[in-house]
């Protein structure tokens, strides 16, 4: 196995992020994995576990808008972005992160979303409007990438195609919750929730992962 593919030369390195040391243990990860497995098989069990339900949603109205808006942007069902049993709770971390990074653009984006008559189609309106190439439009793209990759791509960097990107995995759990892996019908590298030999068969259909 190679350590070095062709084509990587001359890149800068990335230091290890010590700034956002979000508490993370194997235990929480496994709890989350167990919950995810449960969710896929016996959905009704949630009613037995009311104490987990929406335990840490802050500012309910604004948070709810964030989730609905994120669902429209990402194409991932809102019930997946905000599962009823969610001890990992990456959604709150994302909400807090985006709000603290770009408070004004975030308010503007939420306002745009609220004003849309068809919430599911709101990104069409956003990306076809003059707003598409403003900070609000690029914040929307940063939010998509945050949900997909667990990494923050600063909107100002994304706007400039010539600028090298410096993504930041915002926390260990954010990486493990990236939606790109589920969209590709798999698991994050290093975070399998599956059993020996699964790879010899086709995965479950895509919609099982995201709807």
């Amino acid at each position: 196995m190679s350590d070095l593919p062709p084509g990587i030369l001359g890149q800068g390195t990335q230091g290890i992020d010590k700034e956002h040391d979000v508490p993370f243990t194997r235990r929480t990860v496994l709890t989350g994995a167990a919950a995810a497995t449960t969710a896929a098989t016996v959905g009704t069990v949630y009613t037995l576990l009311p104490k987990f339900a929406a335990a840490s949603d802050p500012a309910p109205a604004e948070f709810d808008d964030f989730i609905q808006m994120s669902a429209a942007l990402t194409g991932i069902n809102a019930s997946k972005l905000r599962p009823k049993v969610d001890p990992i709770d990456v959604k709150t971390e994302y909400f807090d992160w985006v709000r603290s990074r770009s408070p004004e653009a975030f308010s503007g984006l939420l306002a745009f979303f609220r004003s849309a008559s068809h919430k599911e189609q709101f990104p069409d309106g956003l990306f076809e409007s003059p707003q598409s190439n403003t900070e609000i439009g690029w914040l929307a793209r940063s939010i998509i990438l945050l949900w997909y990759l667990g990494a923050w791509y600063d909107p100002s960097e994304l706007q400039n195609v010539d600028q090298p990107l410096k993504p930041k995995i915002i926390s260990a759990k954010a990486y493990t919750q990236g939606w790109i892996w589920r969209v590709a019908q798999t698991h994050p590298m290093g975070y399998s929730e599956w059993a020996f030999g699964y790879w010899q068969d086709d995965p479950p259909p895509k919609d099982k992962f995201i709807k």
Partner: protein
Amino acid sequence: MCADKCRECDVVIVGSGVAGALMAKRLAHGGKSVVILEAGAKIPPNINAYMNRFFRASNKVPESPYTPQLSADPAWVNAGRPTSLMIGAKPEQSYLIQKGPLAFGSTYERIGGGTALHWLGTSLRLVPNDFRMASVYKRSDDWPTGLIDWPIDYDALNSWYGEAETELGVSADVRDQAYLGIRFPDDYSYRMPGIPLSKVDAAVAAALTKFTPGDIGFLELDDPHRPWAVTSTPAARNSLPYQSRRVCAGNTNCIPICPIQAKYDPTVTLNEALDTGALDIWYRTVAKEVVIGENGWVSRINYIRYKQDIGGPIEEGCISAKVYVLAGNAIETPRLLLMSKNGGRTAAGVANRSDLVGRNLMDHPFYVAWALMPEGRPVYPYRGPLSTGGVEDLVRDGSFRSDRAAFRIEIGNEGWNFVVGGIGGDPDLTTVDLVTGRNRSEVNERNEMMFGGKLVNRLNDLITRQIRLGFLVEQTPDRRNRVTLSEQHYDGLGLPRPAISYDLSDYTKKGIVAAKRTADLLFEKMNARSFTKDPPPEHPMSFEWPIDGKTTRIAFGGAGHLMGTYRMGSDPRNSVVNSDQRSWDHPNLFLVGSGVFPTTATANPTLTLAALVLRTAGVILHKDLG
């Protein structure tokens, strides 16, 4: 300096990787008191310290989970190491000083457990002809250049392979592996059944059935009519619970780190050795000089200790023993030998009467090719171990080895993860492209910006069709490919950093060209669209070669398989150690690891170096070494 204060033990081992760990375990179990000097940091009590670093690393390179930090200037790092992102870089960023003409593309770790913390686990045996390349394939003094026989043969190692497969816990089926003369004892079985093949493997296998003898004429196989097949790769990866470790859960992360230790790593062996109470491991302890006594025997090793990754030494000391085993790797072991000048008595370095210490540095030049399967034909990569299958039986040996290097084919299960845009490229790179209108992946040719359902569908379509092939090509020895000591660049302890001169022979280049043509053919038979990039002329790991009358530039990578720099042989003028891995010059000094390999063969070296270590441990235990 401090001989009277040296700590004493039976055996000192430098390095705690696979070779050092296995040696320590065997000797400790045999009643010897053993001390390992390990240059790097201690293994953390809980693997999550490494997992946390890995999860949060923006560039998920093989080194990501491990210390020291990747971005430090190597001049300040006490025990530095080469890293994947810095292979073409200047000395301010690169620990290795690259003197060319080509860059050396492999890296290693200096940490408790060594580089095998991030090995893939591939555990192929060498084929018998790999041990007698000169006898079987040398046509003249001039061609192929550099070929040399090993001082031992396959049969001498057969039982030691079995022991190594037990220590490492190899999953494979004898039926699949008995090819090209590989023989097993009558009732032999691997410790665990083979690892199931992936959907990617199945797609490659289907395409291989379409090869015709005419298609593959360029390979000049002995029997072009024999059908090609994909077989499950022997791997030190659990298909059953083994050594109190879990079964592989297909985390697709053998490199850089298995989160559940279903893949063997040397900490397993180190813990078994520590349990005896006869082993001490001294971490952050860098061997600085092998001291030779008046009788020509090693009398002690001087070392430097440090506390933090950066910040210089805190103390110096020495340790003496009856037997000394150097188990660094094919760069750090010759570096230590060359640094050991003994006040000028060994000005050319210890164990270096042959002038071969540091010479004949080899790797498996790694040709990678990547493609997209046709629409509607997903292969579902990013699932299962990083690699489960390969092609070996036809391509690893044959009379073509009188003309060009052999190779083996490794089928990747990680899509374009380390090929598109660099290590850790995908799925991130393609995702960013589709969301922001970039086209670094070359799959977003119209620079579209997507969101919602369209984004989901397009990403699913693209990522599930990614395929990656790797070809590990054998490299011939060349005394000009060598490790020396830099005269300008030092590490944080003030020790000279390794300088590397590296090139490929025409024989090896011809093997890489054959690999490229095989990849092209395979993609054609799969109706897959290749996205393999032609390297720019300045690419430091590329060369030009005529293919079908057209000059083509081909890039290659390193495989992380460092070999050859203190090779074994039957003639002290032409080798550094004998078949027991014992220095010709100093009777109580043993040099172990793949640095002893006279030739590279095509198998990943860990299993063979493990077998050799176990054999040498028997020699040390059963001979009175005074």
